[in-house]
């Protein structure tokens, strides 16, 4: 309000100033003896200036009336009166009016044209900016947000909303759309046409709806409220068209890229699966062969075999089933770790409990091996998936039993160190070869890929241990120790102590 008053005052001052300067100049020239008709031209100049500088139509109009009156008063005989002696002046004044009107009209037309062009340039520039920006960073959400801010900028905040097809809750406004509006929206999207006031469809709706439809699918629509306004102007519609076109082609591009990525991931997964399945069936077939031949042989030649051979075969079969069963346990753990899209379920477990369960049940496999289990002095807790951590420990113990010489000593222990709980399985049974060291804990997928053809299943257990420990944000390592054997240890973050 204040600003407008100031503008009006400024314009008024300009008018008065222009008239004053013109009158002063006229007096000067009059003194030099110039003919009064020429003085009229000076006023014309003043009116031209006022027309260019001020914005409203009344200022130049008022100025031309004032000019006529001033000229009449000061410069026509009889001077200092509004009387006119010479009828020629009537004609001069009439021409003056006409000329000033023409000047005014032409100037304002030019000005309007310039403004329109400037507006178009601005729109063009912002379209350009928008498309550049969207090409660079553009998750669908970005696109919708940029579009919304662009709409708010040109058509006024609060008047525009975007409806997304994927999103049942209106994006731009909190209340659900009213029945007619929502029907019109789906019509616009389904038919891919502008709908609402000023179009052939739903012309009574106080909105203008423009669909956002891409090559492959509809993304939603843009709506502009026309409650307090007549229909959209042509250039507004074409600007909206361009905005929507840019937005929907960016969304199209996104869609294509996402699809590409999905396909390539699928291909990769498919490849991995094939290799994995091949290696796994190999791993299953080996013990299965032993089972099949052993039991078949026993069935066919039971009567001819002596007691000791029968026992041997049966004990082999029994060993192989244990091997197969361990293998399946490992596989299950692997699926638990790798298929967990969310993190694996964890609970606070007592370290004593974990050690107790993982070290039990090896009695039949011990032979001449000796095993000691040392639990920590305090009651330590770790957050973990108990089943999986037990699987790690059992794999390590089982490896130690398989890969060490007879009568080797195996120590299983656990202790706290710098806020972590260390689990340690060590033996004095010969240690690791250089090749074994290199392949320890290799990531399972890498392992499968590398060894796809000559994969033998050794190392599956350890790489599963590595995956499990990694999924617990812990670390695992293996090296040769000074007892003349191998040490494997992993650490998990401590989550509580009870002395």
């Amino acid at each position: 309000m204040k600003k407008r008053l100031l503008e009006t005052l400024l314009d008024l001052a300009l008018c008065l100033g222009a008239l004053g300067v013109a009158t002063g100049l006229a007096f000067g020239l009059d003194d030099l003896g110039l003919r009064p008709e020429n003085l009229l031209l000076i006023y014309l100049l003043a009116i031209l200036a006022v027309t260019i500088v001020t914005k409203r139509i009344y200022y130049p109009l008022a100025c031309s009336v004032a000019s006529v009156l001033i000229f009449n008063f000061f410069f026509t005989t009889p001077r200092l009166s509004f009387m006119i002696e010479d009828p020629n002046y009537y004609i001069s004044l009439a021409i003056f009016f006409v000329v000033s009107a023409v000047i005014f009209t032409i100037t304002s037309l030019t000005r309007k044209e310039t403004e329109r062009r400037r507006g178009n340039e601005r729109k063009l520039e912002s379209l350009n900016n928008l498309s550049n920006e969207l090409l660079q960073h553009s998750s669908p959400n970005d696109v919708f947000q940029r579009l919304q801010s662009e709409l708010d900028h040109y058509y006024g905040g609060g008047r525009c909303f975007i409806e997304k097809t994927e999103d049942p809750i209106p994006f731009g406004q909190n209340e659900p759309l009213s029945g007619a509006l929502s029907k019109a929206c789906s019509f616009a999207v389904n038919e891919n046409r502008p709908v609402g006031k000023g179009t052939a469809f739903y012309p009574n709706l106080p909105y203008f709806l423009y669909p956002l439809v891409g090559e492959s699918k509809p993304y939603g629509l843009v709506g502009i409220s026309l409650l307090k306004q007549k229909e959209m102007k042509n250039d507004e519609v074409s600007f909206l068209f361009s905005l929507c076109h840019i937005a929907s082609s960016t969304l199209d591009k996104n869609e294509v890229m996402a699809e590409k990525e999905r396909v390539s991931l699928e291909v990769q997964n498919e490849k991995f699966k094939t290799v994995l399945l091949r290696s796994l069936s190999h791993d299953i077939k080996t013990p299965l062969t032993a089972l099949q031949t052993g039991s078949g042989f026993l069935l066919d030649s039971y009567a001819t075999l002596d007691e000791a051979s029968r026992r041997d075969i049966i004990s082999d079969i029994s060993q192989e089933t244990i091997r197969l069963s361990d293998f399946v346990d490992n596989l299950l753990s692997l699926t638990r770790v790798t298929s967990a899209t969310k993190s694996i379920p964890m609970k606070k477990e007592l370290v004593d409990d974990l050690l107790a369960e993982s070290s039990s049940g090896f009695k039949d496999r011990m032979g001449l091996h000796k095993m000691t289990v040392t639990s920590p002095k305090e009651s330590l807790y770790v957050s973990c998936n108990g089943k999986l951590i037990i699987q790690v420990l059992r794999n390590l113990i089982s490896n130690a039993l398989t890969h060490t010489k007879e009568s080797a000593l195996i120590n299983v222990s656990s202790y706290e160190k710098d806020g972590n709980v260390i689990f340690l399985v060590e033996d004095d049974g010969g240690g690791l070869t250089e090749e074994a060291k290199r392949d320890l804990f290799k990531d399972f997928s890498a392992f499968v890929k590398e060894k796809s053809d000559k994969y033998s299943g050794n190392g599956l257990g350890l790489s599963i241990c590595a995956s499990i420990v990694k999924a617990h944000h812990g670390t695992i390592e293996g090296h040769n120790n000074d007892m003349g054997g191998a040490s494997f240890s992993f650490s998990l973050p401590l989550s509580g102590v009870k002395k």
Partner: protein
Amino acid sequence: MNEKILVVEDDHAISHFLDLVLRSNGYLSVISETGLGAIKTFLSEGPSLVLLDLGLPDLDGMEVLSRMRKSSASTPIIIVSAREKEDEKVAALDHGADDYLTKPFNTGELLARIRVALRHRPFPDKEQPFIYRQLKVDFVKRMVFLSDEEIHLTPIEFKFLSILIEQQGKVLTHKFLQERIWGYETSDDYQSLRVFMASLRKKITPPTEESYILTEVGVGYRFRED
């Protein structure tokens, strides 16, 4: 008289094998391959024990379990299942199953569990000392010996040990133990219970042997039985 065992198992090979094992060990066996059939047999024949697979073609095994429990509170039911998630084990045990055996299992284990479940309580006779390998517990004097040396247990540890021995061979869930010892549930993941148990286990494990108390992380504890 031979004890009759109802085997609820939909896999032919396994049910045939179980039938063979049970009969050659002096039990009578009845096989049922569906949940509904099993419930019918359970009601009409009144078996002494049930081996129940949780994965059945018609009904969920848990449903079968709860229906059997409704009609007989005392018939032992042992779950034999390939489902090995701790929560499912605990759920079955807390809903009235007496024991839980995960497939694959060996027959020795199965027969031991059956023996434990069929043994008629009360046991042990608290007048007599309980002896298991190097462990000797005198309930009357409340004294515990390991390799003939007296070991000192706190009252709560002694209570734990008594409950475990009473139900020797049977897995006891955290929840069950918590309620037996303290009489109320806790929300601390049974932390105190586990600490008491760890300390008891340490005290009564001889240095040269595997622990007498078997731990099943996430489920509970079991006193070893040979």
